[in-house]
C-alpha cells in the first residue's frame, strides 16, 4: 500500500530520487548542533498552544463584566482582553495550563535562540559561506523578542500595562519623530484603545508568518550549505562525517521534540507563570512595583535603570534620556550583531570559506570579545532587578544601582582579559578539555610569549590526547558525505 502510494507520486513528480538523496543526507554528530532544534521545537509548541489560546482570547479594550470563578473580580467590569484571559485561567477547561505552557515556551524559545547564537559565535560557524544564515538567525532573534513582548502585552493586566507605558515612553523618546511615531503606533494618546487589537494581529499573524518564512530559509540554507563540523581525524573541509538523516538523525530529532514538549508541559503544569488575576486589570492611573519585563528584554530594562539622568540638546532639539538606553543601545547591539561576520573578516583578514569549526581556544580574541559582550549584557540584565535585589539584601536601591554602574564598567573588560588568558593557556597546554588542563598552565606567563604560539587552530588534531577518546565503543562507522561546491 505504502509502496503503491509512493510509486503513484514518483511517476508523477519524480520524488523518489529526491527522497533517496534526502534520507541519506549526513549530519555531523555533536550535541551542541541540536541547540537550534530546541528553539525550533519550542516554536512548534508555541504555535500549537497559541492556536488554542486564540479560540478564547478577545483582543479588545471594550469593557464587559467578568462573571466567573475568580472571586475578587466576579461581577467587575474589565476590558474584554483581561476578561477573556481571566476566563482562560479560571473558567476554560485546560485554559490555564495552555496559557502557562505557551508563556514558558516563549521564555525557552528565546533562551535557546540565544544559546544557539552563542554556540555559532564561539565556534566561528558564522564565517564564510554562512554569513547569510547568521543574518537570518539574528533577524529571527529580533522577531522572537518582538513577538514575546507583544504577547506579554496582550492580557491588559496592570503589569503588562506598565510595560506598554514604558514602550510608549520609549517611542516618544525618539528625537524629532517620537511623538508622531507614538501616536501612529498606539493609535492615539496613551492608553489608546487600538493598541491591544494591533498587537494581537502582529502577535498571532504577521510576526509568526515572518518567523516561519525565515525559519524555512534558515533550514534550507543549512541543508544547501551542509552543516559545519569540529576538527577530528577523518573530517576535512571537503567532507561531512556524521549520522544519516534516516534513521538515526530523524530518531534523535523526533526524540528531542517529545523531550522539549515534555519539559514545557511539566513547567506549564507545575509552575505558575504570569498570574494576571493577582496583578489586576490595567488602569492608566495605576502602577505596580516591582515591574520587570520578561527576561529577554531585561537588558533594555537594566540599561534604562543604569543610565544616569542627563539631558542632551542637539541643534536646538532635546534628545530625551530614554533614547540612549532603549533605542540607541538596542540599535547598536543588533547592528553590530548583524555586521559581525563582515567585521571579523575585515579585522582578522580572513575571507576564506570555513567548514571546520574553531574551538573557543583556537581564536582567543573572538572568544574574549564574546565573553566581554555577554558580561556587559548580563550585568544590565541583572541590574533590571535592582529593586528586588535591594529588597532581598535589605540594602538601599541607590547603593545597589551604584554598584551595578561600577560593575558594568569594570566587569566586562576584566572577564574579557581573563577569558583571553584562559584560552591562551588552554591552547598552549594541549589539554583536550578545560577540565583536563593543569592549573600550572594558567600561571605560565610564557603562554602568550614566543614559545607556544597557537594560531587559528591549524595545529589541532595532533594536539589531542592519544586515540582522541573515540577508540573503543563507536557503534558502526559514521556515514560520510562529500562536500561538493554548491551541492
Amino acid at each position, binding site marked *: 500500500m505504502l509502496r503503491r502510494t509512493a510509486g503513484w507520486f514518483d511517476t508523477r513528480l519524480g520524488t523518489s530520487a529526491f527522497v533517496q538523496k534526502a534520507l541519506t543526507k549526513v549530519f555531523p554528530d555533536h550535541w551542541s548542533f541540536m541547540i537550534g532544534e530546541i528553539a525550533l521545537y519550542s516554536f512548534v509548541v508555541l504555535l500549537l498552544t497559541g492556536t488554542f489560546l486564540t479560540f478564547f482570547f478577545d483582543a479588545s479594550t471594550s469593557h464587559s463584566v467578568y462573571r466567573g470563578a475568580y472571586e475578587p473580580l466576579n461581577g467587575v467590569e474589565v476590558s474584554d482582553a483581561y476578561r477573556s484571559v481571566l476566563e482562560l485561567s479560571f473558567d476554560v477547561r485546560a485554559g490555564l495550563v495552555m496559557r502557562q505552557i505557551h508563556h514558558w515556551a516563549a521564555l525557552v524559545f528565546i533562551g535557546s535562540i540565544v544559546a544557539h547564537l552563542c554556540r555559532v559565535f564561539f565556534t566561528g560557524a558564522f564565517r564564510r559561506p554562512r554569513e547569510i544564515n547568521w543574518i537570518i538567525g539574528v533577524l529571527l532573534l529580533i522577531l522572537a523578542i518582538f513577538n514575546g513582548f507583544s504577547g506579554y502585552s496582550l492580557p491588559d493586566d496592570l503589569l503588562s500595562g506598565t510595560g506598554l507605558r514604558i514602550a510608549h515612553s520609549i517611542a516618544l523618546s525618539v528625537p524629532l519623530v517620537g511623538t508622531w511615531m507614538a501616536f501612529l503606533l498606539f493609535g492615539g494618546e496613551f492608553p489608546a484603545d487600538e493598541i491591544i487589537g494591533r498587537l494581537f494581529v502582529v502577535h498571532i499573524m504577521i510576526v509568526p508568518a515572518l518567523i516561519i518564512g525565515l525559519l524555512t530559509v534558515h533550514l534550507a540554507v543549512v541543508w544547501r550549505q551542509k552543516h559545519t563540523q569540529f576538527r577530528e581525524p577523518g573530517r576535512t573541509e571537503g567532507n561531512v562525517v556524521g549520522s544519516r538523516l534516516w534513521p538515526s538523525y530523524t530518531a534523535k530529532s523526533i526524540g528531542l521534540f517529545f523531550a522539549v514538549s515534555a519539559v514545557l508541559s511539566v513547567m506549564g503544569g507545575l*509552575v505558575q507563570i504570569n498570574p494576571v488575576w493577582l496583578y489586576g486589570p490595567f488602569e492608566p492611573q495605576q502602577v*505596580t512595583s516591582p515591574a520587570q519585563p520578561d527576561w529577554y528584554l531585561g537588558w533594555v530594562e537594566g540599561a534604562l535603570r543604569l543610565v544616569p539622568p542627563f539631558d542632551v540638546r542637539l541643534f536646538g532639539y532635546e534628545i530625551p534620556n530614554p533614547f540612549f538606553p532603549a533605542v540607541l543601545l538596542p540599535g547598536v547591539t543588533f547592528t553590530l550583531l548583524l555586521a559581525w561576520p563582515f567585521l571579523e573578516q575585515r579585522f582578522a583578514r580572513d575571507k576564506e570559506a570555513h567548514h571546520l569549526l574553531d574551538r573557543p581556544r583556537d581564536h582567543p580574541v573572538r572568544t574574549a570579545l564574546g565573553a566581554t559582550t555577554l558580561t556587559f549584557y548580563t550585568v544590565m540584565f541583572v541590574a533590571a532587578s535592582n529593586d528586588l535585589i535591594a529588597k532581598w539584601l535589605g540594602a538601599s536601591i541607590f547603593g545597589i544601582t551604584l554598584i551595578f554602574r561600577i560593575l558594568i564598567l569594570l566587569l566586562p573588560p576584566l572577564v574579557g582579559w581573563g577569558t583571553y588568558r584562559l584560552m591562551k593557556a588552554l591552547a598552549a597546554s594541549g589539554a583536550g578539555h578545560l577540565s583536563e588542563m593543569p592549573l600550572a598552565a594558567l600561571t605560565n606567563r610564557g603562554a602568550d610569549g614566543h614559545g607556544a604560539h597557537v594560531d587559528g587552530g591549524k595545529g589541532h588534531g595532533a594536539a589531542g590526547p592519544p586515540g582522541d577518546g573515540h577508540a573503543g565503543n563507536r557503534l558502526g562507522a559514521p556515514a560520510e558525505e562529500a562536500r561538493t561546491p554548491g551541492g
Partner: protein
Amino acid sequence: MKLRCARSGWAVKVLTALGAIALGGCAYTSNLTNPHPSQEPVADTPERGRVLYLRDCAWCHAAEGSGTGRGPDLISDTNGAAFTDFMLSTGRMPINDPSEPTRFSSPSYNPSEIEDLVAYVASLGGDGPPIPVVDTQAGDLALGLELYQENCAACHSTTGVGGALAAGPDPFDRSLIAPALTQSTPVQIAEAMQVGPGTMPVFGRDTFSDTEVDSIVRYLGHLQRPDDRGGLPLGHVGPVTEGAIGWLVGVGGALLIVRLIGTRVGEE
C-alpha cells in the same frame, strides 16, 4: 557607627554600600533583631505599662514621652494608641540602637503587655487615632481590589509582597522599603493606614470610609491566601523569578537532554 566625612568621596560610599549589604546579610542570618525578650517579666499590676515604658522606652523617648536626641516624641502628630500598637505588635519597636532601621519581626511583648504599654503611652497626651476596629466581613472584595491597586500597589506591589523605595533624602538609607503585607493582621493594616509609619503617607478617616478600609483589608486577606492556581507561585514577584526558572529548568533542562541524546555512545 556612621561615617560622616563631609567630602569622603564616592569610594567611601561604595564601601558603605558594600558594608550595608554585608550587614544586611549578617542581620538576616544571625537573628539579632529581637534583643528584649530576655528581660525579666514584670508583674501584671495596674502599674505595668508605666514600669515597662520607663524600663525599655524612656531611654530614647524620655520619661514624659517628649523625646530625646535618640528618639522622637510620642505626643505629637499621629502619635497615640494606633501608632504605639502598630510599632509594638509588628515588632518594629523596641530597637537596641537608634540608628537601626525599624523592621517587621516577632513582637517583644505579649499582647497584654502591649495593651498596657499602649494605654500608658496614650495617657501621655498624643492625640493620634485610637486602635481602629476592623470588620473584614463588612468589606467588599472588588472594591478592596480597586482601592488597593490604586493606592497601595505602587509601593507594596499588586501581590502584596512589598518592594524597595527610591524616594528619600539619604540614598544610602537602608530603611527605605515598602514591607511585604503577607503577614500583617487586619488591625495592623488599618493602623498603618491611619498613622502612616515611616515614609508611608497617612490614609486617614478623611481619605477612606470605614467600609473602604474594611474592603482593602479584606482584599489583602485574600492576597495573603490567594486563589493560587497554576502551580508553584515563585514568590509572586513576576518575571524575575520566572526568567530564572525559565533558564535553569527550561533552557537548562533542554540543554541537558540535547547533551544526552546528541552524544554517541562511547563519546565523552
